[in-house]
């Protein structure tokens, strides 16, 4: 049983390298936004969700818009509801206590590796936990390294570092592209975002555009079922 933890840890090491690299980007960005090392550490430990942390740091301002940031971060993390749901075969023989203990360590990466392994092998939640710890450590050390590097960069815009947010979010979104049925919802999202951002103050355009695009996708699916 103990070996499952180790197996999970080792299986996540290759992807852990890229997690380390993203983490260092987040660390650099934190220094630009005046986020302290303690705040970064608290986010890493208690939130432990890469994309949401990037969004939070991007929206970080003084004074903090707590409501908008919380809504945006939790909307990004809504997918963890589905991640949790898809892990039910792994926890089929586990007591409730294990579910509460290990689910915090389900990240995109450790989840993907676990699901892949679950197809061919009998594994226990310890595999997910081991993988999650691997991602946790690489993420944590990556962000701290970035934070210390960031303090030496006096003019981040010169190196295009402010554009790193945009580039990473865009690439992440593209990695979720499922096929041409996504084209219309994505177009709706982009259009609503641009128009709403132009006419209204604040960050509300993010949530409004995302909901518009996702509603569009849901409607298209319904049409397809009615007609098909």
């Amino acid at each position, binding site marked *: 049983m103990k070996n499952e933890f180790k197996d999970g840890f080792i299986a996540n090491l290759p992807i852990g390298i890229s997690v380390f690299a993203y983490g260092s980007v987040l660390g650099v960005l934190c220094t630009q936004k005046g986020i302290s090392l303690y*705040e970064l550490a608290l986010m890493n430990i208690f939130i432990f969700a890469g994309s949401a942390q990037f969004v939070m740091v991007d929206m970080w301002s003084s004074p903090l818009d707590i409501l908008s940031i919380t809504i945006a971060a939790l909307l*990004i993390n809504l997918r963890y509801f589905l991640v*949790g749901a898809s892990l039910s075969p792994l926890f089929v023989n586990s007591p409730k206590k294990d579910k509460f203990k290990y689910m915090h360590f389900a990240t995109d990466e450790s989840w993907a590796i676990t699901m892949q392994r679950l197809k061919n092998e009998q594994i226990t939640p310890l595999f997910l936990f081991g993988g999650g710890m691997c991602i946790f450590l690489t993420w944590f050390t990556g962000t701290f390294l970035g934070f210390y590097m960031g303090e030496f960069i006096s003019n981040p815009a010169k190196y*295009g570092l402010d554009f790193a947010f945009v580039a990473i979010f865009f690439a992440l979104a593209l990695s979720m592209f499922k096929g041409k049925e*996504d084209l219309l919802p994505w177009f709706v999202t982009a259009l609503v975002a641009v128009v709403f951002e132009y006419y209204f103050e604040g960050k509300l355009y993010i949530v409004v555009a995302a909901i518009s695009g996702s509603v569009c996708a849901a409607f298209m699916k319904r049409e397809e079922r009615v007609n098909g």
Partner: protein
Amino acid sequence: MAEVSISSLLLIALVAIGTYSLRVSGLLLSSRFVKDEGPFKVFLDHLPSTLLLALVVPSILKEGILGLVAGLVIMLCMYKTKSILLSLMLGVLIVALSRNFL
């Protein structure tokens, strides 16, 4: 912990509690949702990508022509390599070069 303000502590706590609840409730309520292929699941499936897209599109446009070029290069790179890290580096490189040399 003098470097942590009350408002950032509150924000982090709210997001942390919400995120943990989502992770656990998905697993505990799974039987009702996993098989569901209805509109609600499609809506949830699309939220992460549309949210990220909504965040970036206005910023790309504000960067001007070179923002668009960087965006196109990122698309091409993701299509060819599927590497987020490489795409990120190319996008940042284009913007950095344009700001220093154009």
